[in-house]
């Protein structure tokens, strides 16, 4: 009896104790599991929000693209103070967006100038999580694809029948072909009202385009090449000393070339491009211009913009021919207002660009030069019997901006990956 009593006393409360211990263990396990589940739920929710924030940010990019494509003047420019961009709450969520210019040197000035390359920044968020993206964009234009040998912005006159143009002839104004010049390509009229001034003597392949071709002015090209100072910059920083004989940059004859008799003036190229600046150039007698572009391209700039000057040109054969425009091509830009006279009977391997405003500037072809390149001018007149053969790649029209679209690259700004 004593034994059983002792056994019973030992077991007293054991069941309760064992149950409690069992329950505590199971509770701890279950609580841990529940905590894990809740934690997992929270993590998935945050991951979903993080993922969706990127979609919202990308929606902001497309929203801004459509906005500036509709009216580039309404672009959300980067603000100097306060929030950098403009905040929009849309069906796609809330995002903040702004644009900056995208320069080739990596700088991002503001404000962005419509027509130029740009960056679009957008920050989108879901439930206090935000992600930012930065996307490159460009203007898509209706750049014409014609193979112009000669283009007269406002008019073109061709006198004589022995003139030959190998390529297209174009204008935004009118043409008057006296005689019967040969044009192997198209005669292209661009824009409303552009047409023959009087019917031609022969038949040509005529193309009428609805929109005029927009050519940048020489000053604009200079600004794009040298920065905001444009021609003034190249007037002060040029390669006139590379010419043979060297062209003075100071004194009474600064930036002027006058050659007589049988003399030559040689313009030499250099790697990256030699830029010459002239205020006048006159070739008298049998004198002529020679281009030594063996070492690089040659650009000759005539200025100042809008002033009167003299440009009478003979010769112009280049050491390196351009078919198509080679990396060492020769380009002549005239921002002055007087007529440009191309004389002589020899070869000219160059592109001549004489567009500053439609009211002034005419290129007059005399003699029988063989011009291999492109001649784009406000106006042109063919006298004599020149041959002009188109070489593509010398000059590009501005084109009209149709819309803006994304191009690589694409970045996430401050991303975790």
């Amino acid at each position, binding site marked *: 009896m004593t034994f059983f009593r002792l056994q019973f006393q030992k077991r007293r409360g054991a069941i309760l104790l064992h149950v409690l211990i069992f329950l505590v263990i199971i*509770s701890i396990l279950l609580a841990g599991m529940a905590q894990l589940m809740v934690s997992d739920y929270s993590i*998935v929710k945050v991951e979903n929000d993080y993922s969706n924030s990127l979609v919202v940010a990308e929606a902001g990019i497309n929203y801004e693209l459509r906005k500036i494509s509709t009216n580039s003047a309404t672009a959300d420019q980067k603000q100097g103070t306060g929030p950098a961009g403009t905040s929009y709450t849309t069906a796609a969520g809330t995002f903040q967006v702004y644009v900056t210019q995208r320069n080739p040197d990596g700088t991002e000035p503001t404000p962005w100038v419509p027509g130029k390359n740009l960056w679009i920044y957008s920050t989108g968020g879901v439930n206090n999580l935000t992600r930012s993206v930065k996307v490159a964009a460009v203007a898509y234009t209706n750049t014409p694809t014609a193979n112009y040998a000669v283009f007269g912005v406002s008019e073109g006159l061709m006198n004589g029948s022995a003139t030959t143009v190998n390529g297209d002839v174009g204008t935004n104004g009118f043409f008057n072909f006296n005689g019967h010049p040969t044009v192997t390509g198209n005669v292209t009229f661009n824009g409303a009202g552009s047409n023959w001034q009087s019917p031609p003597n022969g038949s040509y392949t005529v193309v009428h385009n609805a929109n005029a071709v927009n050519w940048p002015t020489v000053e604009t090209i200079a600004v794009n090449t040298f920065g905001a100072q444009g021609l003034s910059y190249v007037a002060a920083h040029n390669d006139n000393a590379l010419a043979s004989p060297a062209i003075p940059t100071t004194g009474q004859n600064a930036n002027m070339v006058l050659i007589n008799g049988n003399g030559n003036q040689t313009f030499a190229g250099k790697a990256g491009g030699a830029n010459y600046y002239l205020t006048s150039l006159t070739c008298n007698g049998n004198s002529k211009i020679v281009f030594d572009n063996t070492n690089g391209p040659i650009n000759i700039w005539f200025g100042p913009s809008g002033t009167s000057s003299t440009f009478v040109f003979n010769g112009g054969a280049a050491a390196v021919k351009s078919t198509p425009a080679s990396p060492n091509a020769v380009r002549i830009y005239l921002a002055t207002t007087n007529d440009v006279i191309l004389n002589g009977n020899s070869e000219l391997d160059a592109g001549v660009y004489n567009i500053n405003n439609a009211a002034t500037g005419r290129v007059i072809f005399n003699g029988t030069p063989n011009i291999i390149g492109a001649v784009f001018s406000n106006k042109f007149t063919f006298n004599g019997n020149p041959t002009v053969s188109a070489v593509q790649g010398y000059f590009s029209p501005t084109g009209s901006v149709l819309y803006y679209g994304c191009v690589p690259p694409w970045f996430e700004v401050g991303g975790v990956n």
Partner: protein
Amino acid sequence: MKNGFSGRRRSGLSYVEVLVASAICVLCMSIMIQLWSFSVLLTVQTTDNAVACDLARQTVEALKETGFTQTPEAPTSAPLVHYFDIGTHNLDSTPTAARYKVATTVVSDYTIPASNPVLPAGNALRTVTTTVTLVSTGVTLTTLTTYLSREGI
């Protein structure tokens, strides 16, 4: 006598003890079952949310890949609908076996007049809305909205 009385008391206590232990056990087990049930439900919800988000992103990216012009217009009255299982496998052929329904609308604010099928105008902003629901209950798990523009991202 004293000892006999004590023995009876001890004997009765063991029954009470078992009863109390059983009661605690039942109470705790019911709580644990609820906790377990909650955990299972939470796990299912977590999985559903994760899969729904993946399906929505997958749908939006697929539309972006199709492109601004090639993506067909899909108004609210006739959304693009696809069915998926929990492994994001397409079950359009057997929608009753699917767990998720993905309905996508694509609405352009400008369209080419008289185009058939309807085509977006070049200057359109196309709103893409993807909604993922549970086939069994019709509960909406996630909705993702974004924009498409010409030559956009």
